[in-house]
C-alpha cells in the first residue's frame, strides 16, 4: 500500500505545480515542440531539452532576435551571428573570429546545428560548458569577443522599447538578466536542426548515390581505409559526430591543450571535440584552429599527415607512416561522399535568418 500512497502523492504534487498547458507559477507561454526529423526519430535517442527551459514560441523568437542583435556587445558592433553566420552553417569563414577590439581568437568558430542531440552536453571545442545555456553565457563577457559585462548587456536590452515586453511574453517577467537571455538564445539554438542532406534523402529512400559517392561511403566505413566512422558516426547515427574529445594527430606538442586545459588531466592534453561532418561544404576552414582550408587538406592529414604525440588517439592508424595512405581515387570519392552531407535547406532556412533586418 505504501507504493500506492507514493504514486497518489506524486500525482497531487504534479497537479498542484504544473498543468498540461505549460503554465508554471501562474504564467503561460506557448509550448513549441521541437520538430524532430524522421531520420533522427527512427535512429537515435530524443534531443536533450532541460526541464527548466522548455521550448516556447515566444522564447525561440526572442532567442533568434537576440542571436542577431549587436547590442549584446560592449560597443554594439558584434552579434552572435557575427561569428556564427547562417551561410556558414553558423560557423565563421575566417580562421579566427575577430572581437570588438580587433583581436583575433585562437580557435575556429564551431558550427551550430543539431546541438540538442549532443547527449554529453559538453559544448565548445574543449567541452568547458555543460549546457547550451552556459555556452551562451561566455561570448558576451569574453574580453576578445563581445567584451561586455552581463549587467551592461542586460541594461541595454532593458532600456529598449521592445525587449521588456518580449521577455514578459517568453518568461513572464520583463526584468532582463543573463539567465533569461541565455535561455532564450538556447531555445533558438535548439531549433537549428539540419537533417535534409542528399545523404539523408538517400537513407530515406528518396535519393541515389553516384558510384563515386557510394565508394566514398565505403571508404568512410572501411576500417582498412578511412575508418572515419569510429569518431564521426554512421548511417545509423546521422549526427556524424561522437561529440567526444580526441587527439587526432595534428601536432607533436600543444600550444593549445584543448580538453586537457579544462580538466587539468595531462591524459587529455591536445584533445578536441569531433565536429560534425554535416555541412562541411559551408564550414571551412577546418580543425579547432582552422588550419586546413579545404576538405582535401583534411583528408590528406588523415592519409599522410598524422604526427605522433603521447595522447594521440588509439584510433589513429599507421601513425609512424603518417596514416593509412588512401589512393587518390579513394580520396576523391571520400570527398564526394562528404559533400552529400551538405544541407543547403538548412543554411538558407528563412526561420534561421536575421529577424532584425
Amino acid at each position: 500500500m505504501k507504493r500506492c500512497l507514493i504514486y497518489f502523492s506524486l500525482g497531487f504534487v504534479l497537479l498542484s505545480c504544473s498543468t498540461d498547458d505549460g503554465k508554471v507559477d501562474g504564467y503561460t507561454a506557448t509550448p513549441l515542440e521541437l520538430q524532430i526529423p524522421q531520420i533522427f526519430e527512427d535512429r537515435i535517442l530524443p534531443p536533450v531539452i532541460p526541464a527548466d527551459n522548455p521550448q516556447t514560441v515566444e522564447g525561440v523568437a526572442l532567442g533568434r532576435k537576440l542571436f542577431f542583435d549587436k547590442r549584446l556587445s560592449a560597443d554594439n558592433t558584434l552579434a552572435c551571428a557575427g561569428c556564427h553566420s547562417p551561410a556558414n552553417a553558423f560557423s565563421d569563414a575566417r580562421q579566427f573570429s575577430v572581437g570588438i577590439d580587433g583581436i583575433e581568437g585562437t580557435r575556429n568558430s564551431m558550427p551550430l546545428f543539431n546541438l540538442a542531440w549532443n547527449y554529453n552536453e559538453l559544448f565548445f571545442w574543449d567541452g568547458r560548458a555543460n549546457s547550451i545555456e552556459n555556452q551562451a553565457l561566455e561570448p558576451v563577457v569574453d574580453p576578445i569577443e563581445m567584451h561586455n559585462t552581463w549587467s551592461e548587456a542586460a541594461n541595454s536590452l532593458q532600456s529598449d522599447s521592445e525587449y521588456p515586453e518580449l521577455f514578459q511574453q517568453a518568461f513572464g517577467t520583463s526584468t532582463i538578466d543573463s539567465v533569461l537571455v541565455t535561455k532564450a538564445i538556447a531555445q533558438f539554438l535548439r531549433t537549428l536542426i539540419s537533417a535534409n542532406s542528399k545523404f539523408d534523402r538517400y537513407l530515406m529512400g528518396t535519393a541515389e548515390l553516384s558510384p563515386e559517392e557510394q565508394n566514398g561511403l565505403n571508404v568512410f566505413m572501411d576500417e582498412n581505409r578511412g575508418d572515419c566512422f569510429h569518431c564521426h558516426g554512421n548511417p545509423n547515427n546521422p549526427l556524424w559526430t561522437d561529440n567526444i574529445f580526441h587527439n587526432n594527430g595534428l601536432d607533436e606538442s600543444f600550444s593549445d591543450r584543448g580538453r586537457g586545459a579544462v580538466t587539468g588531466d595531462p591524459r587529455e592534453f591536445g584533445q578536441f571535440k569531433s565536429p560534425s561532418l554535416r555541412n562541411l561544404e559551408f564550414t571551412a576552414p577546418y580543425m579547432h584552429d582552422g588550419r586546413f582550408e579545404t576538405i582535401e587538406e583534411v583528408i590528406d592529414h588523415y592519409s599522410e599527415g598524422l604526427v605522433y604525440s603521447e595522447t594521440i588517439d588509439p584510433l589513429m592508424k599507421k601513425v609512424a607512416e603518417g596514416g593509412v595512405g588512401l589512393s587518390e581515387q579513394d580520396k576523391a570519392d571520400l570527398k564526394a561522399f562528404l559533400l552529400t552531407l551538405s544541407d543547403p535547406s538548412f543554411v538558407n532556412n528563412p526561420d534561421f535568418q536575421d529577424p532584425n533586418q
Partner: protein
Amino acid sequence: MKKIALLLAVATAVVACKNDDNGTPIPADTSVDFTFSHNWDGDEIENSDFDVIQYTNANGEELSISKLVYLISDVTFESVTTGEVYDAGDYNLVNVRQGTNLNFTPDIEIPEGEYLVSFTFGFDDEDNIDGAYLDLNSADGGWNVPMMLGGGYHYMRLEGKFIDNTSTETNYAYHTIRAADPSTTPVTLQDTSFEVDLGQIAIGSGTNIEVKMNLAQWFEDPNLWDLNVLNQMLMPNFDAQILMHQNGSTYQNSEGVFSLGAVTQ
C-alpha cells in the same frame, strides 16, 4: 494532463495487483543487481590506470589501456529446483573509463531461490539486428558495425598503446564484433558472441553479483596474442575475430576473461 492520467493508471494498477490485505500469498519476487569490475591479472583497474603503459601481456608487450567499453546481454537465471528459465532480454553497455553502467539490474523479477546464472558477451545473432537499438546507435558515436561487415553492433572496444618490437609506442584497437569476411559475396558471418556461465548462485532479496573481467586474458590463452602482428584493423579480419572469441570465452577449457566475484545478499 497526460502525466496525471499516467500516474493514476499506474496507481490503480498497483492497487489491483498488489493487495496485501486479502491474505493471498505473494510470491517473493526480487530483482538482481550486477556489478562489473575489471582487473589485469588481479590488479584492479581504476580510472587513474588508463593511458599508462604499465601492463605486460603474455607475449611480453608492454601496453596501456585507453578505452574499455563492452556490451553484455541476455542475463539468464535457470532455477535449480524447477528448471524454469528467466531472461530479461535486455542489455548493458559498460564504459569502464567513464564509470557508466558498472552497475546493472536486469529488467526482471524472479522468485528467490537457487539459480544457474549466465549472460551473453555481446549480442547473439538473434539480438544483433542492425540499427535496432536507438540507445546503442547513439552511444559512443554509434556502437554500430558497418554494413559491409554484416551490420549489427560492436561487442567491445578495447584500445590503447603498446611498445612494439621497434620500441615504438604504437596504437592498438582490439574491437570485437561478429566475425565477418567481406571478401566473400555475400559476406560470411559467424556469431562470435559467447555465453558466460557464472555458476550456481543463491538469489535472495538484495542480491548483488560481481562480474570480474581479467583483461590480460584477452591476450593470453588459448591464443598467445602478438600485438606486433594484430593491433589494428581487426574488425574486417575474420580469423582475428575467431581468435578473440576463443580468448574471451572458455574455449577448450581456457580460463576466459569473465569470472564470478563477490556475491552479497
